[in-house]
């Protein structure tokens, strides 16, 4: 069923007053002179040129979908989503590169490798050899970067081995591709935190990639197919009374907000009400007086927090930072240094590498000057960028919180 207001994002373009707030606050516009800026791509060009499929703004490709335009727009225009719709339109009549095909479909690759004996080991080896011999570069990837290594055991397999205590309160964890295949310890920490709060964690084998990497590379139909699959499952869990919780802020933004913006379906809006960012959910538990405060966090370390843009767009403030600082009592400072520049798979593209690193300069500088022992960030690709640029130690806030609970602190 279509929503009452059809084509929400497109309608929002008519709210544009051309105030240039999005241009002034766009990190890509600041870093790259070739980019005309968000206003000229989505709200201006897209709105005026819907009739002709071949008529797209020629600097559209620079948009990273980081959402700083949406965050700073005073008039509620879904600027970045308009850009993504325009990009999808472009790819209806233009072929994708092999590189984009690969970056968009990380989930398929991760699944294939898992089904081959030693597949992940050889893939990791292959990526480092590929990097050394410039193969990544030849494929149009940023050769200076390490590609994210596959974990020896994916989260969904690790989960099966976790012995949970069963509780009547349950949540369904949406790991997302990166936590599942590359950073499963984040998922394990999430289970610990939930268990410490007498909540049982369920997983759902039928969840698929949220679609974020598909949207930004212009595979909009595939993203919509994924959206329908996930929305069906979220609604199923909704009917059981179990919320769906994600630790990846790009996944949660997609499930909560971008599905409805991109595809204008009422059931996406309904399903979104059952999806939570992990710390948003913990904050609600705290408000209800249900959150365990049995903390014994070590206080000898200094942390720096980096807020992912995709969290800042969610209108929930910075719940992880606030909780770690005010409740757990960890010494943590908010870097407040804008976008890291990675923006999902954007920074992995060879021709976007320099832009990506330039965008992150302020954050990198702050990290280096901070003297912090570790950088805390909810987003997996932000963490990769931070490690690449600064070699800092990084973690997801849920890992800090898990460690702060006495019962896990002893281990």
């Amino acid at each position: 069923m279509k929503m009452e207001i059809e084509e929400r994002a497109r309608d929002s373009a008519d709210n544009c007053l051309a105030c240039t707030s999005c241009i002034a606050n766009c990190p890509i516009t600041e870093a790259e002179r070739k980019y005309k800026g968000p206003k000229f791509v989505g709200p201006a060009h897209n709105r005026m040129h819907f009739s002709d499929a071949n008529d797209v703004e020629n600097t559209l490709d620079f948009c990273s979908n980081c959402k700083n335009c949406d965050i700073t727009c005073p008039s509620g225009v879904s600027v970045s989503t308009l850009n993504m719709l325009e990009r999808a339109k472009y790819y209806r009549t233009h072929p994708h590169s092999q590189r984009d095909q690969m970056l968009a479909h990380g989930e398929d690759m991760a699944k294939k490798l898992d089904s081959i004996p030693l597949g992940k080991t050889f893939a990791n080896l292959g990526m480092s050899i590929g990097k050394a011999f410039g193969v990544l570069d030849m494929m149009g990837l940023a050769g200076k970067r390490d590609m994210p290594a596959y974990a020896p055991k994916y989260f969904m397999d690790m989960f099966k081995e976790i012995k949970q205590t069963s509780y009547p309160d349950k949540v369904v964890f949406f790991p997302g591709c990166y936590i599942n295949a590359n950073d499963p310890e984040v998922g394990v920490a999430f289970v610990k935190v939930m268990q410490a709060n007498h909540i049982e964690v369920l997983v759902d084998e039928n969840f698929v990639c949220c679609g974020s990497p598909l949207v930004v590379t212009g595979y909009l139909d595939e993203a919509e197919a994924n959206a329908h699959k996930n929305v069906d499952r979220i609604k199923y869990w909704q009917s059981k009374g179990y919320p769906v919780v994600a630790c990846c802020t790009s996944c949660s933004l997609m499930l909560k907000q971008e599905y409805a913006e991109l595809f204008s379906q009422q059931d996406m809006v309904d399903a979104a009400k059952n999806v939570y960012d992990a710390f948003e959910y913990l904050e609600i538990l705290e408000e209800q007086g249900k959150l365990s405060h049995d903390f014994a966090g070590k206080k000898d370390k200094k942390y720096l927090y980096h807020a992912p843009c995709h969290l800042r767009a969610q209108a929930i403030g910075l719940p992880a930072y606030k909780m770690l600082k005010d409740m757990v009592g960890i010494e943590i400072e908010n870097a407040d240094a804008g976008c890291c520049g990675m923006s999902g798979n954007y920074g992995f593209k060879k021709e976007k590498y320099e832009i990506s690193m330039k965008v992150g300069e302020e954050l990198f500088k702050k990290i280096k000057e901070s003297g912090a022992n570790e950088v805390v960030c909810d987003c997996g690709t932000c963490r990769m960028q931070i490690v690449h640029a600064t070699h800092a130690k990084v973690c997801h806030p849920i890992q800090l919180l898990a460690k702060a609970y006495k019962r896990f602190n002893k281990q």
Partner: protein
Amino acid sequence: MSKSDVVVIGSGFAGLIAALVSAEKNKKVTLLSYGAGTFPLNSGVVDIMGYDEKGAAVASPAQALATVPAEHPYKKIGIPSVQDAVKFFLDFTKKEGLPFVGSLDKQQWIVTAVGTMKPTCLVPESMQGNQCFDAAEIVLVGVKDLKDYYVDLVAKTLPDWLGKDKKYSTFTLDSHITGGRDLTTLDVARWMDTEKGFNDAVSQLKSQAGSGKVFIVPAILGTKGNEVYTKLVAALGCPVVETTGMPPSTNGLRVRDMLLDALRKHGVEVVENIKAHGSVVDGKICKAVVAGGEVRDKKYEADSFILATGGFYSGGITMRDFGEANEVVFGLPVEADCVEERWVNEQLFSAEKQTFAKAGVRTDASLRAVDEAGNCVLENVYVVGRNLSGYDFCFEHSGNGVALSSAYKAAMA
């Protein structure tokens, strides 16, 4: 989760000032922000009162303040609070590295991007148009390929304002930025931020410098603070005056940047991209503001609330039909002459104020909303900036002045 002392709703000039003053009083402040305000459209100066009721330029803001009609926000704010707010802002900007100058006694004049001059009260050091009055020669600097700034137009217009007895010359600065999108003042300001760009600019402009000369440049003197301006004045050895500019306005963005920096230092919690649309009220006391994003709402509890969501332009006040003007967060009574025939004065640049522009929340002298009988509606909710009724900031040039002084007074309450 945790109750604040003050929740400020809105992050335009009024909202940021209200949050800042509250934080300086050691209050625990939460700022609910939706968008980046009107700073990219804002010339970054503080007009207190530019033009009187008849549209004539005001020589002394203090004198103009004494004669405003009873409905005007300044009447409620009161002259002592305006004086305190001005002093606060001058001290604050000095401390934060973007010092403003000016006083309520005498108007400052600034140069616009089309070569006219306009009166204002407080200006950053880089925009002191008054310095042009005594100059023997004005050097008008344009920038090659800069969009929306035509130095020849400025050269044609400015003598009408500054007098034809002065010498006027033009010079075109080359940023050597080629390719890519149209050049904006923000792009050139970023170039001036770099050491290479700055030195390049100085080496080009140096030949034009000399005693008795004043440079007028578009708003390109860096993206943050006052540093590029002071360095350039020192390097050239004569005064430099920035004009206002087309959006994105670097002068407005510098002010926003300074205010956000200060809030960061004070540890103010800023919640971004969040729209407030309701409140929890018990009798005459507001307990919480209801705000959220696309999916769900949250209650933000506090002892007091400052409403700085703006007027029609910013969506703080809406009107579906005549007679249905609505303040969106608290449903406060909106005072407006909501009659179709009188609503709009069709002549855009006429000598009369616009009725719609004066629509807003009626308050008492403490800036709390009152009903038609004059009774306070909510005792712990203060209304500031463009949410207030009874003035047409565009006509009289008082926008940031009302914002500054009402926000200051509300936060000090």
